[in-house]
């Protein structure tokens, strides 16, 4: 069981470092990106896993993002970088990319295919994926940015 969480944390950390490199963080921020992403992603897995909590992915994402935000805010004075520098890359492995393009795929198929049932089927694909994607992103941002506003002084004085 713990092996699954360890693997999830490890691959989330690698994903966060790689995706963070696209947005040019300071070099000292990479390690914090990895730590934050590993903690957040494995925590979400723990919440959604059937054998433990079996929570819905949207709520689990909200709680995991809150954890990521809190860790990021308290690590930011140590790294002397704004919390977003590793907060956002740490959230990237949780971005519902597959839902996003499945929604677009469903929309494209609605336009390209004819027939009442086929349209309904693809519209369902579009609507469910679009709603899930939007709600997950919204929960991620609310969860991750709430600690920034709760601990405003710590988060906005990190680069001081």
């Amino acid at each position, binding site marked *: 069981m713990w092996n699954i969480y360890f*693997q*999830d944390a490890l*691959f*989330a950390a*690698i*994903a*966060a*470092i*790689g*995706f*963070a*490199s*696209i*947005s*040019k*963080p*300071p070099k000292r*921020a990479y390690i914090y990106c990895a730590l934050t992403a590993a903690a957040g*992603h494995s925590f979400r897995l723990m919440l959604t896993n059937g054998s433990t909590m079996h929570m819905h992915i949207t709520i689990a994402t909200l709680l995991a993002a809150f954890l990521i935000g809190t860790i990021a805010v308290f690590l930011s004075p140590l790294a*002397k*970088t*704004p919390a*977003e*520098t590793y907060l*956002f890359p740490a*959230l*990237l*492995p949780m*971005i519902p*990319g*597959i839902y*996003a*393009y*499945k929604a*677009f*795929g*469903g929309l*494209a*198929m609605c336009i390209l295919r004819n027939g009442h049932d086929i349209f309904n089927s*693809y519209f369902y*694909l579009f609507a469910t994926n679009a709603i899930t994607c939007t709600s997950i*992103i*919204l929960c*991620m*941002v*609310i969860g*991750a*940015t709430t600690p920034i506003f709760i601990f405003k002084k710590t988060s*906005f*004085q*990190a*680069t*001081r």
Partner: protein
Amino acid sequence: MRTTTVYKCGSPSPQELCRFLSEYSALLLGCGATCIRLENNVQRIAEAYGKEISMVIMPRHVQISVWEKGNDEAVTAISTVKSSPISFNVNTRLSELSWEVADGKTDFNQAAERLGKIVKDDRQDKWTVPVLVALANASFCRLFSGDAVAMLTVLAATLAGYSLKTFLLGRGTDNRLAFFICSFVSSVLGATDILFAIGDTPTTAMATSVLYLVPGIPYLNSFSDMLCRHYICAFCRFMDAIVLTGCLSAGLCCGMLLMNVGMF
């Protein structure tokens, strides 16, 4: 009667400060900072010099008015946001600069000099990033339960796609077209497992081969701006992200049609 204000050495006039803040805002917003950070940083610098400010943040422009406390005459500047790639390094260094000004560690002339240097010094190793991104996307594939073969396929597809993206954007190609082309190339390469029936999770390889293109930071920034009630910027950033997601989905669909693969 007109009065003349004499500014001490290191203390800028409203005109000078307005010009500085205008350039500072354009750089900070262009490198992907949220509106709330921009407001806080600009306010901090203005307070350090004892000036009052008011600002309007639009998606492509920033308007700043600066005036002396107790004086009605304001100086206004409008700057166009620099469309540069997202850079947390620039974001961090600009935030540090605002604190150094606020704490009196740097005078106005030094701050103005450093502003130009911050962007000039923002370089990145062009060989390391594609490898890191490819490893990241392969790890992503693993997070979606892809096997080792799928991870290798995604690694290759991402390496090719990301290098192509860097090349196209470097040549000044429109980023929407670049996203479409890179998504198409990555999805065609990602379909290798399906084409040759190798590995146990070929569809995961194809689905995750384009995920490195998902504009995650613009999505997050847009919702962050929305929470701070910067609705126009939030909507603009969200629409940018939607358009890019649409381009990558179109590229993926074309790749799937070419390889005769059904995923939807």
